[in-house]
């Protein structure tokens, strides 16, 4: 099939050291959507952590904004093969929320206002590795990109960083989320190229 589409390069170009296998760098910030963009005014926003026993702890927008804020800069990697370097966020470490509850759970499901879910090991969202972000590059996070607030978990493929997130549900078992139940990998490490269930 050597004569097929000569000159078509697709999107794979070399980028040293910081580019996981099979990724290409992008300057833009592509928007991927699995549904209509929800519009959540901050006065109707809340963030709830639910334990495996059903206990809940909820923060309003003002309460969340009054928590200690961090400004992580990170490379992000989308399973659709784009990577974006040095993205700048502002938000609250998930440690701050999770420290407020008692749990023996090993997993967590991130749940969004539009019904989207993503599953994660608890140890991947604790220890300074994950944030609830409300500001991107100095600007309030746009609805297209998950505003008013989304998860940012840079060490995993970016579908794990749920947009329009409304809470975390702690679970003893790993419960596949929206894409994980339709073929995508349960863990999603870009450096091990864990894109699909069988990878």
């Amino acid at each position, binding site marked *: 099939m050597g004569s097929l589409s000569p000159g078509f390069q697709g999107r794979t170009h070399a980028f040293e050291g910081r580019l996981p296998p099979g990724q290409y760098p992008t300057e833009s910030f592509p*928007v991927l959507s699995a549904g209509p963009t929800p519009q959540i005014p901050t006065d109707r926003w809340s963030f709830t952590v639910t334990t495996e026993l059903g206990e809940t702890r909820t923060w309003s927008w003002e309460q969340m904004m009054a928590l200690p804020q961090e400004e992580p800069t990170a490379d992000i990697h989308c399973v659709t093969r784009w990577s974006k370097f040095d993205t700048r966020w502002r938000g609250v470490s998930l440690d701050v929320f999770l420290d407020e509850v008692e749990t023996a759970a090993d997993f967590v499901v991130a749940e969004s206002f539009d019904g989207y879910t993503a599953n994660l090991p608890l140890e991947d969202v604790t220890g300074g590795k994950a944030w609830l972000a409300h500001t991107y590059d100095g600007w309030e996070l746009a609805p*297209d990109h998950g505003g008013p607030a989304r998860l940012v978990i840079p060490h995993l493929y970016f579908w794990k960083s749920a947009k329009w997130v409304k809470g975390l549900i702690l679970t003893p078992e790993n419960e596949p989320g929206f894409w994980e139940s*339709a073929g995508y990998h349960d863990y999603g490490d870009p450096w091990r190229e864990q894109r699909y269930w069988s990878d």
Partner: protein
Amino acid sequence: MNEHDEHPLHLDGNALAGPLGEVFLVDPTTAWRRCPSCLRPSTLAELHVYGPEPGLTARCPGCAAVALRVVTQPGHLWLQLGGGAGAFRFSRPRIMP
């Protein structure tokens, strides 16, 4: 119909003819369905489809409830109908360039 990877807005179920045609013997776009959430009837062609990446999500044009999801990977096609039915993984012939 035209290239849609740059458009954040949705397509419709006409765009599912190719991906689902890999596993359906009959053209799937004319298939009728009634949404279990809002009872609105529609053909598969009339569903609102988001994607194509990381997968195609088809929703009821009335209430946006998820009707099906399709994920295409090199060796397999995953099809999930509705929300909780579990996804079916179909083998695709592996095509080398």
